[in-house]
């Protein structure tokens, strides 16, 4: 079978070499597993850190939104609901049954004011209730906000939007809706605009909302230098929902705000 000792040696070293090679490959394989597991661990650690950071920012934003919501409630109660309730009280004080026609007129006025008060409370609750916002969705929510603003009649407001809206998760819907509310509130409060337009467009990859007004505008750099917490908050919230947030504004040239939500 094996004629010479050289052939025997060849077989011996071939087998030994083969075994050593197999063990070498096994060792490489084990080292790769260690590397893979370490990478996996690093990836999970980074993912967890990002998730923690995201949760922290989300919580902070929620607290800010809550604070703003409370401010809005205070504002609505004082400037709107409180006024109507005061008017009802005045009408009730003036109510006299000496003249039946005048009394009837006054009761009708009170009825109308009470109806308005109930409507305002209902609309305020819709506007503030996050669950309701999720149920309505961004499309209906925008319509609702625009309808509310139209009642003010100090400016023209125009909404252009696609017939179908993409499905957006509840967290994104709430944050986006609150951003829309804040942008519109700021526009009404500070811009002195006569015309406001909201253009919504949708592609396969993103949903774009463009808010444009012809108001007094502002200097973005100065605003940010002064603190501009409202703008910073809007930007933080946009990042939370994986959206791009851009502002273009110049003094006396109005403001354009663009939100691009990645789908």
């Amino acid at each position, binding site marked *: 079978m094996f004629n010479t000792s050289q052939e025997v040696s060849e077989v011996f070293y071939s087998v*030994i070499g083969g*075994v050593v090679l197999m063990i070498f490959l096994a060792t490489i394989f084990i080292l790769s597993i260690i590397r893979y*597991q370490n990478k996996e661990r690093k990836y999970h650690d980074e993912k967890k850190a990002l998730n923690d950071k995201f949760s922290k920012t989300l919580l902070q934003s929620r607290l800010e939104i809550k604070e703003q919501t409370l401010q809005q409630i205070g504002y609505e109660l004082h400037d709107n609901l409180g006024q109507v309730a005061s008017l009802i009280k005045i009408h009730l004080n003036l109510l006299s049954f000496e003249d039946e026609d005048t009394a009837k007129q006054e009761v009708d006025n009170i009825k109308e004011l009470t109806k308005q008060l109930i409507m305002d409370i209902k609309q305020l609750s819709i506007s503030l209730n996050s669950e309701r916002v999720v149920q309505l969705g961004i499309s209906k929510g925008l319509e609702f906000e625009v309808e509310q603003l139209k009642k003010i009649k100090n400016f023209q407001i125009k909404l252009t939007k696609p017939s179908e809206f993409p499905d957006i998760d509840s967290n994104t819907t709430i944050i986006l809706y609150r951003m829309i509310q804040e942008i519109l509130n700021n526009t009404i409060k500070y811009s002195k605009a006569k015309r406001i337009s909201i253009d919504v467009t949708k592609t396969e990859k993103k949903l774009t909302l463009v808010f444009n007004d012809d108001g007094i505008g502002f200097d973005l750099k100065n605003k940010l230098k002064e603190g501009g917490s409202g703008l910073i908050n809007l930007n933080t919230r946009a990042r939370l929902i994986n959206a791009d947030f851009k502002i273009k504004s110049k003094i006396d040239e109005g403001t354009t705000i663009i939100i691009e939500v990645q789908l």
Partner: protein
Amino acid sequence: MFDFTDIIYYILLLSAIILSLIAPKDHFRGLIYLRILLIVGFCSELSVDLINSNYKAVHAPPSPIHYFYIPFEYIMLSVFLKKYLKVKLVKTLINFSFIIYVLVALYFSIFYYSFGKDYPGIIYNFGIGFLIIWSSLLLFNLEFNKKVKLIQLPIFWICTAIIILYSGVFFYNGVYNYLVDARTELAYKLRRNINLNLNFIFYILLCYSFICSIRHKKSAKSSTL
């Protein structure tokens, strides 16, 4: 009867048994299977050596004990590895492999080796293939506590030991029986060089895995204190 390398082999095997008995059961899933395997392994190796003590080492015939020990070893190691696997499909495959393995082992033992003609290399290699697959899958899917490093885990060293021992033995087993017939002395020389050295590595790694579990228990104890 026993030469120096045999004595080292038995010392390492005995050390592994002792450390497995010291290792904490609650910090080492499936430890009982390793304990049983090591004790049975020690007894069977000793029996084979005692039975063959009348023969010159080179000419010792294959022992029928191997025909029972090799399937037993496969089942014990597979059951042990199964304890750590999380994927249900792999667990089912391991269960299924027991039936296949026993049937294959029986078939080859009866019809091919007649329980003693040759060393049951095919039966051994069949189990080795499966064990390397299970160990690799386990290492890839190992889930562990973030406070512990991978190399501090006993199961990591056990899988490493299995992969290194069996990847070497697999290659050698293929030619062993052929060489026993063709060149008995060469086969014996190779067995001494490969099998014994790989077993040394295997038992050293096994001992280290038990030490890891003992250390782990101590550190867990001190952290609770």
